């Protein structure tokens, strides 16, 4: 049983990392899109929708990296209280934080997926020159938010199962 548990744990962590790598690719795409817009402007060619595509890449990059950033301790939080506590009190506080965080991460993921579904159903289009079908970029964002929800719940379950806070120290404020 426990070996299945660690295998899933490892597999998920690898999955979060790959999502981070995809996010990094979107960051490069963002840069390339903006270079394209500069070059095309210098050449006097108008390519419609470049700015919107840059915005979509920005969103895709940010959301694909959410889970990976969470694992690496990159999301900031106030840890003053946590550092003042030890033992059981600290463990209880960590459980509280992870539970609330799990709830709202799932809440966000659910409604982003729902929004994407409605965009798909009603074939909503971007108002910009690109007239992209909105569900396409939105689904990237919803996917990232879903992975984020999985990783927070993952951390919660692991903390309960092992009895020690799962997350590394990571980024913190004070």
């Amino acid at each position: 049983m426990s070996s299945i548990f660690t295998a899933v744990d490892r597999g998920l962590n690898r999955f979060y990392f790959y999502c981070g790598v995809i996010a990094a690719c979107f960051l490069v795409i963002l840069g390339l899109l903006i270079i394209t817009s500069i070059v095309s402007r210098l050449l006097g060619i108008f390519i419609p929708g470049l700015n919107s595509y840059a915005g979509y890449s920005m969103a895709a990059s940010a959301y694909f990296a959410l889970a990976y950033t969470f694992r690496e301790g990159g999301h900031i939080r106030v840890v003053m209280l946590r550092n003042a506590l030890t033992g059981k009190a600290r463990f209880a506080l960590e459980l509280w934080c992870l539970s609330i965080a799990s709830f709202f991460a799932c809440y966000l993921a659910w409604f982003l997926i729902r929004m994407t579904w409605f965009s798909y159903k009603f074939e909503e289009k971007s108002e910009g020159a690109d007239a992209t079908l909105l569900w396409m970029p939105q689904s990237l964002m919803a996917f990232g938010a879903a992975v984020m929800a999985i990783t927070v719940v993952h951390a919660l379950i692991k903390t309960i199962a092992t009895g020690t806070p799962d997350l590394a120290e990571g980024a913190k404020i004070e």
Partner: protein
Amino acid sequence: MAEIGFTLIFLSVLFLFLGSGIWIALSLIGVATVGMELFTSRPVGDAMATTIWSASSSWTLAALPLFIWMGEILFRTKLSENLFKGLQPWMQHLPGGLLHVNIAGSALFAAISGSSAATVATVGKMSIPELRRRKYPENMIIGTLAGAGTLGLLIPPSITLIIYGVTVNESIAKLFIAGVIPGIVLALMFMSYVIVWSLVKGGSSEEADPNTTWGDRLTALLQLLPVICLIGAVMGAIYSGLATATEAAVLGVVGALIMSLAQRSLSWDSFKESLLGATRTSSMIAFILAGSAFLTLAMGFTGIPRALAEWIATMQLSAWQLILILTIFYVILGCFLDGISSIVLTMAVVEPIVRQAGFDMIWFGVFLMIVVEIAQITPPIGFNLFVLQGMTGRDMDMIARAAAPMFLIMLLAVVVLSTFPGLATWLPANM
């Protein structure tokens, strides 16, 4: 009466979530959800999704990850070594000697990294050992670093200024240009303090380096020149209107890549690290901004910002009184939150107040940067002080004491900026 009860619940949830250590972005989303559930009957989740989608896919935000990436690439070049070597021959004959390297180095580094904690850590890592070896007093080493490290938020391209610009819908290019003169003025104020300190103290116990020739100075300058040119080109492109902030950012990334290739400090590994580092930081910030956009929406429904703005309007405060109150407010807030969080958290409430009072939002952005920076070095709790504690191994009491004069200088800078608002508004008005 129910309104007041709801407001109290709303504020308690805010403090509970943030204070207990729930990740800032998720706290903001949670608080906003609770707020909207209390104050409206609109479908909360759907409003959240559309708000977060439009906040996260906005083109103006694109400058942010690119500037972060540029900083990450430059971090991994030989920049920090060159910084000390290049500035030293120019600074050591001023009264106060190499302490000025701390300040000028921080100002220069701030311009590329955009983060004050990173500036303190990077400049300190090379300058603390050098200054100790030459027997400079410890409190001045720490003090100048703590103070000058805060220039990171003011000197463009400042990540925090981008965040402010996105939050209040002001031109990022104008904000960048507005930060230039106040940043230089603040750096000069720090340097004047060191000069006065050195003259008052008289006779130097520090060991001077052997005299440098103009040849040395020029070689040293040549090492720094690429970085200075890169920053100059990025800012020039923005100021002249040739490029938007986002376009200038991508030029910065390309320039930084070429520079580190030329220095042979760019490997596949360092490229990967810089890219993943930038991805993580911008993901964290974008998530906070998304949460803050939703909180702003929810705040609108609670009516708190409007009520507060009207209440403050009825008090007939003078501009000075308002500035004083806001300064105290942000310094206290900065004891618990970092600069970015305290800005995104409060803007929904503070923006209407400030607009109603008739402040220029560009000027206010620069003011806010200085005030948020003051909070980073306010004893006993300040982020930069903790970084310095980790680096020097001294106790907090000593570090807080060393930073105290810098804290006062920055308060003076707020007074100067409020007396002469043109320092911030003149350049952007003439773009």
